[in-house]
């Protein structure tokens, strides 16, 4: 599988300089995305999803955060080390990104067309008129009505859903091989969310664009993604294909997460809930970061850092329960209700 990988992140560590010193927001993250694949990245707020994506794009706020360690292989290039010039070429062209807030992600003072044409002309040496045509085509492609008029309108004249479509159009305009979508639908209403997800899936199928889908909504993951990585407190704690993760989650956190989501299909008697709350980044020095909230934690969890143990082919979990040596003793099956 690895050979098809378009992006491969290796022990990425990203730190922020805060009042408490250098705090790792992302701490040794490994994952890959295959060509044409939709990878879901789930996790609760603050676990480092956005930071991971910004690290890949090389868009960490300068002077505030930096990649402290690790490699980011895009195709055959470690872009963690790439120059700003090279990154400019990659951004928007080979890796595109869309953000959570469609309301604020477009510059309010420029027309849609202006912003799209700009995106095209940075990477392609074509005339304004041509670029404009491309932009209109793209807007049509993402299902916007009145594309010809809309291109001269300002963002505030569009609804949230329309803006997110514009964002997608802009991201797709150079036909990137990877699209990073950071919670693209969180700010939208369900009915609109459904439209956008549908659109993305369509684009993925049509153009074979790999998508890194960041979300905290397990429903979205289940519906969209081929493979999933689950993040917790700056680390990936479980990884596997979507069926496996939802059917046979291994890590206690993943299990808890899946069980605590109310289902619209039927009413559970009582929700399962993970006790406690997410630790602040950098606050846990030793052991598994989930140990304090974990019902199955044992001594080792508080003192040692677990690795990402392979549970089966392509399914890994960061939990001592699955550490190879002790695999037998702590066997445990979990079912989602």
């Amino acid at each position, binding site marked *: 599988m690895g050979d098809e990988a378009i992006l491969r992140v290796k022990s990425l560590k990203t730190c922020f300089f805060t009042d408490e010193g250098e705090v790792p927001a992302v701490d040794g993250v490994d994952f890959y995305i295959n060509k044409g694949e939709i990878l879901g990245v789930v996790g609760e707020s603050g676990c480092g999803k956005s930071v991971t994506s910004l690290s890949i794009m090389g868009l960490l706020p300068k002077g505030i955060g930096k990649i402290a360690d690790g490699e980011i292989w895009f195709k055959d290039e470690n872009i963690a080390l790439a120059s700003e010039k090279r990154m400019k070429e990659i951004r928007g062209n080979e890796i595109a990104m869309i953000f959570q807030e469609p309301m604020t992600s477009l510059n309010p003072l420029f027309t849609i067309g202006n912003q799209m044409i700009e995106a095209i002309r940075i990477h392609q040496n074509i005339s304004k008129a041509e670029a404009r045509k491309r932009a209109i085509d793209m807007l049509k492609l993402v299902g916007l009505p009145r594309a010809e008029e809309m291109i001269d309108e300002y963002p505030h004249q569009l609804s949230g859903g329309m803006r997110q479509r514009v964002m997608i159009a802009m991201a797709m305009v150079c036909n990137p091989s990877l699209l990073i979508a950071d919670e693209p639908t969180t700010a939208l209403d369900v009915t609109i969310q459904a*439209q956008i997800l*549908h659109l993305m899936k369509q684009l993925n199928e049509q153009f074979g664009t790999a998508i890194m889908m960041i979300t905290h909504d397990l429903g979205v993951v289940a519906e969209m993604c081929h493979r999933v990585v689950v993040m917790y407190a700056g680390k990936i704690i479980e990884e596997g294909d979507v069926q496996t993760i939802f059917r046979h989650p291994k890590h206690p956190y993943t299990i808890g997460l899946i069980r*605590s989501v109310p*289902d619209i299909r039927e*009413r559970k008697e009582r*929700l399962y809930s993970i006790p406690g*709350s997410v630790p602040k980044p950098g606050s846990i020095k030793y052991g598994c970061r989930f140990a304090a909230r974990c019902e199955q934690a044992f001594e080792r969890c508080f003192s040692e850092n677990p690795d990402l143990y392979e549970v089966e082919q392509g399914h890994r979990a960061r939990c001592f329960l699955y550490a190879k040596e002790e695999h037998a003793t702590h066997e445990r099956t979990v079912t989602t209700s």
Partner: protein
Amino acid sequence: MNEPLLQVKGLKKYFPITAGLFNKQIGQVKAVDDLSFSVYKGETLGIVGESGCGKSTTGRMLLRLIEPTEGSIVFENEEVTKLSPQQLRKLRRDMQMIFQDPFASLNPRHTVEKILEEPLIVHGIGSKEERRKKVREMLEVVGLSSYHAKRYPHQFSGGQRQRIGIARALMTKPKLIIADEPVSALDVSIQAQVLNLLEDLQKEFGLTYIFIAHDLGVVRHISDRVGVMYLGRMVELANSEDVYRNPKHPYTQALLEAVPIPDPEYKKEKQLLSGDLPSPSNPPAGCAFHTRCQACMDICKTTKPAWKEVEQGHYVACHLYT
């Protein structure tokens, strides 16, 4: 069901849109447009709908934090809309509110103790000693510790803050609690904690809830009955089971279908709603939903559908059921 605790009839709120030098009114936002429902003692009435459909406005009008434009609200046989400011303050002992944003709804400069004590002070309940004691008890009830009393809101996590908000609402032992999206700002794992807490408290204190949310799963989980709102109107109201298993209104159906299900094997055919939510300042004539409705008929474009009980306890406003 027993007798209703709260009865709402024909409730409306039109916000004026003003402009210009003399604040001339140039239009109005029909935030809530003719709402009628009842809430029974001990139940949880869920209200769902997309953003801007008037859920919060409704919740606030019930407490008269926003003055209704029209309509009646009867709480325990008292007409809320006619109360004097004095009576209103008394009413607020019995009706309380939990807010969506656990960050904004607590005064950042007050200690938790002060925040929780204030409802008691305002209503002149107990001596200082008694009040302090109550505060500590209440903290334990919502799952915090008494030593949290001296801290300030920003020293708590979102979930903890929401617990403080809940504790504040409970201080005066209200009968009805209006919870306006109490969990939508929280992470899934914390959301479950708070939902569980709310359920526990309901049992313990015999509370009645109006639970406002846009997450259909959450609403289903917590509500006995569910009302679905669209553009200031209620389009469907029924038992939670009925709404989710047997949605009648095309909007409800579409809404339920749009919700992503956290189960990769559950594949369903979706009929996506086209288009966006119309603006409440300029709602479509007739049935407000007709612009996006796949079962739209001619009558829908001109005539407002009536609010009708089509099955036992199942109300729908749709021309399909006339």
